[in-house]
């Protein structure tokens, strides 16, 4: 995904919100959800400029599939509840490892190799080929430091790092490649950057329902929309 896509999708989200406001105002946080046609259009606009499976900057195909599956277990999607796959967390981590977190490339390479070694020894399969229940067993073993065969990174360190990066990919502004269509913000009901909250907003006991969400790129192009 590129910055161009992020801005374009932010525009499409706003367009969808405009339509939604006519159809039925006040549906929150579902008001942020796009209808299927709009979703398809937004996806189509993103695809040609990304590799199609959310990586290409750093990970090889196998590693990307493993991290994508791992992240989806950490933050699984369900109907109406966007998870790591829908947010394209793998794309965020892939871009981060080719840039801001380039010093963690070997941490990931070795962590992934150790993960698959552990899975083969324990279940005779690589992580991605395990069913989700087994994947969860593996992740639990990492989290608790019980997975054997890890030297560097340690199992817990690898788990904690992937968890932190999954959180970042879920909730960082879409300009960084994750949180696709504000999936993470929609999940938790965060409205993104709002220029002002009124006293009434702040004292309300209700969910905040003012739209739209605006990404950093759209703000930079038109500062009045954001701050």
């Amino acid at each position, binding site marked *: 995904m590129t910055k161009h896509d992020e801005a374009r999708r932010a525009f499409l989200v706003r367009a969808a919100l405009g339509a939604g406001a006519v159809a039925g105002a006040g549906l929150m946080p579902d008001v942020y959800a796009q209808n299927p046609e709009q979703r398809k259009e937004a996806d189509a606009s993103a695809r040609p400029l990304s590799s199609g499976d959310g990586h290409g900057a750093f990970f090889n195909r196998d590693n990307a599939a493993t991290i994508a599956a791992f992240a989806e277990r950490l933050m699984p999607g369900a109907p109406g509840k966007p998870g790591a796959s829908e947010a394209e967390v793998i794309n965020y981590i892939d871009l981060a490892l080719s840039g801001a977190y380039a010093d963690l490339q070997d941490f990931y390479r070795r962590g992934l190799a150790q993960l698959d070694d552990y899975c083969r020894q324990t279940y005779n399969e690589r992580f991605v080929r395990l069913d989700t229940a087994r994947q969860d067993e593996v992740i639990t073993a990492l989290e608790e430091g019980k997975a054997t065969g890890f030297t560097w990174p340690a199992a817990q360190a690898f788990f904690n790092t992937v968890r932190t990066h999954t*959180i970042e990919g879920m909730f*960082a*502004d879409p300009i960084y490649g994750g949180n696709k269509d504000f999936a993470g913000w929609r999940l938790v009901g965060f409205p993104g950057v*709002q220029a002002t909250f009124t006293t009434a907003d702040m004292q309300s006991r209700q969910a905040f329902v003012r739209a739209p969400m605006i990404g950093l790129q759209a703000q930079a192009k038109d500062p009045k929309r*954001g*701050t």
Partner: protein
Amino acid sequence: MATEKTDVVIIGVGAAGGILAAELGKAGMKVIGLERGPRLTTADFSSLDELRYFQRQDLRPNVKSQPVTWRPNANARAKPLSRLNYGNQAGGGTIHYGAVSWRLHEDDFRARSQTIERYGASAIPEDSSLIDWPLTYADLEPYYDRAEYEIGVSGKAGNVQGRKIEGGNVFEAPRRREFPLPPLQIDQAGAVFDAAARKLGYHPFSTPRTILSKPYQGRPGCTYCGFCQAFGCHIGAKSSILVTKLPEADATGNFQLLTGAMCYRVNSDNSGRVTGVSYYGPDGSDNTIEAEIVILTPFIYDNTRLLLLSKTGKFPDGLANSSGQVGKHLMTHIMARAFAAFDDRHINIYMGPSAQRHSIDDFNADNFDHSGLAFIRGAQISVIPAALEAGPIGTAVGMNPPPGIPRWGAAYRDFLAKYFTRYAGLNAQTENLPYADQTIDLDPDVRDQWGLPAPRLTYDWRRPNELARVEYMMRKLEALGRAMGATHVWRAPLNQGSPGAHHEGGTRMGSDPATSVVNRYGQSWDIPNLFIIGSSTHPTMSGFNPTLTIQALAYMSADAIVNRYKNNPGPLI
């Protein structure tokens, strides 16, 4: 290599350095400020980006190129800290801080005497180096007032000239007049906290903050966007040094700011005076400034580091260190924390400014009777967002789920999805007594990007007095959470002894040159033309955030330099 001459050189242009630059410049003194980071502008803060500013710590020193190491005790090997909580640009920490602005209590300035008078000397832990300050609250009050009015603090007075005022902090020390600006608007978290605290018989109030509640001095009032702690204010409503004192310093025509300038040594001669400083420029050049007065105002690690790095044959243990006290008595705030989550309402704590929103002071300092308790001193309790900022990244990394909910998977997702907008954090910012073996020195193994030894912290807050106090405060937080009507109340885990927030100490001030590094003006006992001003001089810390006290002390020192030292250079005491 360049050499310049000036009247005054200031190292680190943050909370203290910015005030000194402006005030000395106004008095006609030629001032050069060295800042190792850049000088940014309000326009640089337009991108309200939680990943960049909170998670990746832009506006803070880079932990890899500017490491600070920590070990729990002198037998352990120190490792670099993974996050550094101080500023790295002109304006220093006042750019990203939560802008919480307290005056210390009267008894904070005399914690030793107060404790002995009320509970007996045996109440002080044997290993604590608890002392009184060499000045009283009354000495500093005029400068607190000046800092509040010149910089712009919003709040509600609770004690004007001894008259207690409901709605303000009734435990505060007497102030001469109201705050210059009314308190910031209360939010839902504050309202729920306020009601609960009243129900329990406490005295809640809006936390005083250096954030404009109304337009002031040409700057706009806060819009409550919520991107506050960890962020630079994108409209300049947070009264950082960048938008308050630096423009004043510029206007004097006597101030020159050098950015990208890393001071590595304070130079001295055999007469026992300092002669200036040496620094590396952004291009790696090695430069010297000759000055009549050298003022150190960086974050506390660099005060100690610079003094130790500047040792000479005449000062073999480092500058200003004839007492042997440099680097000792490191204190940090211990954060006891709990969370309260609600099924019957939204809190939407991502709205509104800053960190500590609404507070009680009932359990701070010696505001409550410690008889029969296994500790002295207290904590300042507030309602807060999980990471002091309230975006979803900070919330996810800063809020542990309650017992029974894992840290990942569908149950964790559902916990975040439900409670991100329905929780409030409760924080007890707990005072750390001074202990001589909590120290800063030079790391023998780790070096920074300039090849200088990293500051090394030897520190573990888990001593009996602190552990007992943290447990006491945790129970208060849980009681508050229940009184708020929360469906779930649970504790955050405590850290494993590592340094918390608001580091203070290392160059303590005192009345006796044998046991302190500087006098009340921050003037070195050993070297009268060397000043060290900031929280490194604080002998004790209170449960309160230190910045307003740093600023008041800077005003007091500026007055002493302008009115007395300038005409008659020499010891001020």
